[in-house]
């Protein structure tokens, strides 16, 4: 047994063994099983986790952390997105110039916009990686069938979030990408002017599935406002609710899947 009296002072001791430190942190952290459990269960951010979990679940090679990182990227888009909302007006006259102003005049405006954009792209990539790994580990099998279904809904919503956001800079790239995308709705069976049986059911360019999306016959200022509301309120609220359900179900389904 080493003599406790003769312990060398480490850097950690120098930092923590003084008056100022103790005035902030009254006592140290004792690494006991009880404290390890409390760290998780008594912490508002961590209590989504179980306090103990099966060993394979913490391995990078099992989950690739892809679900967790998808969530982190979502949080990044929420934070930066709210910042952007302070400067952006979703109207035909202002939208483009507000974004220009963000890029060139507002302190940190450019980096907020860049982070918002790249985190959104990253989220699309990571959600695909996550789905891929969940499939490869067969984690959709009982009892996790329903959580897979929730996941597919999240995937759809994530793509719609990205798509509605794509229009907001109101530049050439935005308007034409969204024109290509929404044109497909014209061909919806029954509900589109150019879809099978659409005209017979009385669909016109002004009143069909595409007009519902674009709020008119072309991608114009009304479309911008519609996409803005969908992008900033409607889809994020639904996606957030589904994410809470997703995380809750992971716990209820017995934690991260693993060999039985």
């Amino acid at each position, binding site marked *: 047994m080493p003599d406790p009296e003769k312990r060398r002072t480490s850097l950690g001791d120098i930092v923590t063994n003084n008056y100022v430190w103790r005035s902030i942190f009254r006592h140290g952290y004792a690494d006991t099983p009880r404290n390890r459990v409390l760290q998780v269960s008594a912490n508002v951010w961590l209590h989504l986790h179980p306090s103990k979990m099966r060993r394979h679940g913490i391995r990078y090679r099992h989950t690739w952390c892809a679900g967790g990182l998808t969530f982190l990227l979502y949080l990044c888009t929420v934070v930066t997105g709210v910042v952007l909302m302070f400067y952006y007006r979703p109207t035909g006259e202002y939208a483009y110039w507000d974004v220009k102003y963000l890029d060139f005049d507002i302190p940190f405006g450019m980096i907020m916009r*860049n982070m918002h954009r790249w985190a959104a792209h990253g989220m699309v990539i990571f959600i695909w990686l996550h789905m891929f790994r969940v499939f490869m580990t067969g984690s959709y099998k009982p009892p996790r069938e329903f959580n897979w279904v929730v996941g597919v809904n999240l995937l759809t919503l994530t793509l719609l979030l990205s798509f509605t956001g794509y229009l907001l800079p109101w530049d050439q790239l935005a308007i034409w990408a969204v024109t290509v995308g929404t044109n497909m709705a014209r061909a919806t069976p029954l509900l589109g002017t150019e879809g099978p049986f659409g005209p017979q059911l009385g669909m016109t360019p002004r009143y069909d599935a595409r007009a519902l999306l674009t709020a008119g016959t072309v991608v114009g200022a009304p479309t911008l406002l519609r996409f803005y509301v969908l992008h900033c309120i409607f889809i994020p609220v639904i996606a957030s609710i589904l994410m809470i359900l997703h995380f809750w179900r992971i716990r209820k389904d017995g934690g991260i899947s693993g060999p039985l």
Partner: protein
Amino acid sequence: MAENIQPGTIQDQEEVKVQSGRARAALPAADLPDKVHTWPYLVRAEFISGCILLLVLMVWSITVDAPMEEPANPTKTPNPSKAPWYFLGLQEMLVYFDPWIAGVLLPTLIIVGLMIIPYVDINPKGNGYYTFSERKFAISTFLVGFLGMWVGMITIGVFFRGPGWNLFMPWDYWDPHKVVPLTNIDLPYKIGFRSQMGAMTCGAILVLGWLVGVPGVVWQLKKHTPFMRQLGMMRYGIVATLFMIMAGVLVKMVLRLSLNIKYILVIPNILNI
């Protein structure tokens, strides 16, 4: 050291794995406790991966600016007009199918098809671990569909499509006046059917044979095997139909790119496949 571990302490429960090689040798992997504390083991893993991701995102955002082109101008259509990259798979399908199939039916089938996977895959093996040999069919189908077709078509759309949605190599000059002779013909015509009725019959036989006939014959041949009994007609029908549609999309793509086949079945004003 294994002999220094006090019963009832943390070491007793999990730190065995970080002990010296001797301790590890004394405790074979199977005897390691199966459960570990989330704090610090999972939280540490999450923290590290989160930090790396945020670092990459920040460096990326400092060095690469989000695109910003000229103001929106409804009178000036760029050529090509591309959807966002993650939708280019759908835009690419417009080359091979009519808009309502490419833009509405197939996306719906992809979403619905993904959602029903857990309810039609009755193989209990491979639940929670990586294996190929125990789920050959499921994994091969997924790899072809996801990596081969979805990711593949996005790659074509991003790197190989230029003005007029013509094929270009990534290093080619995008010539907006490139003329591609339109020699697309329908499959029945190619086989030799010249009358409209004949072509329609031929097309209908091909399409129905593919979507209904092939799965039906397989069912008749295999329905008494234990596996098919367990699967049941309902689940078999759903899996087989979706599978043949997915394979059919692939076949149609190959026919179009290699033989310039436009349609297989044409019923004027009603249906083109």
